[in-house]
């Protein structure tokens, strides 16, 4: 870690819980690392950490973010290096129940120290709009808003977009936080039949640029079951390819957007075409 770097800080956020923030943080972080970037993923979900579990590092956690903030441990002691990708590190959250343990000054110091060591800092936000979520987005240069094509998720995403425009350091300096929409758990055939909000519906309502569309897939569940990001565990699967495309777009590459079109079952063949 000798070379001085200047990281880009990303927050993965959504407002609503269970939409795929942690899964997406792990998948994008691993994809960035796979593409040669030096990445740290930081879990801000104090009290309910899970990024360690999704990355398969749950038994290697000794020190955590709160320990570093309180001076119990130095930052390098708390960083866990991934066993599969040597460029990928995890800074876990603590399981303490005291959410006030996360202080604004402490987070600022940790982010500042990480900025010099990595190319990307990916902050996994807790659900909600409370302290943990606002601190996770506080120093972000860019935000990934994870949204399911479903009314409550879209509404909460809209709320989070409002917070990104008012509560972040950049917003307070009068600068913009780049916002990227990541649609997850997308069912192509449901959208085609008008049973699920379409990509166009969500884009029109939220009006922020689209980073990627991740299809609903059993591979995502399988990856978290075994504690490996889907971009590592099933790198050629549809969701992993969608995450890799999203990662390349994050890096500034122009990649045409693929609207997932999973192989159709007999039911969809019979009924799907009518509505399309």
């Amino acid at each position, binding site marked *: 870690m000798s070379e001085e770097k200047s990281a880009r800080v990303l927050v993965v956020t959504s407002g609503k819980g269970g939409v795929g923030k942690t899964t997406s943080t792990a998948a994008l972080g691993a994809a960035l690392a796979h593409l040669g970037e030096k990445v740290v993923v930081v879990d801000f979900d104090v009290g309910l950490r899970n990024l360690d579990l999704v990355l398969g590092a749950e038994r290697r956690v000794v020190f955590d973010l709160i320990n570093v903030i309180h001076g119990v441990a130095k930052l390098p002691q708390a960083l866990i290096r991934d066993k599969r990708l040597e460029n990928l590190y995890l800074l876990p959250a603590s399981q303490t129940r005291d959410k006030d343990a996360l202080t604004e000054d402490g987070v600022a110091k940790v982010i500042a120290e990480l900025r010099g060591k990595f190319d990307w800092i990916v902050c996994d936000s807790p659900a909600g709009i409370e302290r943990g979520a606002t601190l996770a987005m506080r120093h972000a240069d860019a935000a990934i808003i994870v949204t399911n094509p479903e009314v409550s998720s*879209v*509404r909460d995403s809209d709320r989070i977009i*409002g917070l990104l425009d008012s509560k972040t350091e950049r917003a307070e300096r009068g600068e913009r936080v780049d916002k990227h929409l990541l649609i997850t758990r997308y069912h192509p055939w449901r959208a085609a039949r008008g*049973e*699920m*909000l379409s990509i166009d519906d969500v884009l029109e309502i939220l009006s922020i640029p689209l980073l990627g569309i991740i299809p609903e897939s059993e591979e995502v569940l399988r990856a978290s079951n075994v504690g490996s990001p889907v971009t590592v565990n099933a790198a050629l699967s549809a969701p992993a390819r969608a995450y890799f495309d999203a990662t390349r777009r994050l890096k500034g590459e122009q990649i045409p957007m693929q609207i997932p079109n999973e192989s159709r079952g007999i039911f969809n063949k019979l009924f799907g075409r009518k509505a399309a």
Partner: protein
Amino acid sequence: MNLLSMFRRGSAPIARERLQILLAHERDARGQPDLLGVLREEILAVISRHVSFDPDKVQITMDRGKTVSTLAVDIEIPNRRRDAGSAAVYGRLTFDPAPAGARSQWTNGLV
């Protein structure tokens, strides 16, 4: 809309329309994070110049409709009885946002 047409068309258009209406309102409110709070402070400041009342007995509510929203202000003010100094009779000052053309009225009646 009956069940059959819901099945045929899917429910996504309904979801889309509901979201568009809801978010239009929520985004309006975002610029003024606590419109009701501000209104409450200012209305109470004006009224307290003329009558005394218990700030806890004030209700300010806003009902947002599609085209028109209504603001209801309900303030309970103690009326001192002329003959007795001890017991207070409570009156209520209500603001009635009258329809366009008519004047709004403050009324002070006994409850």
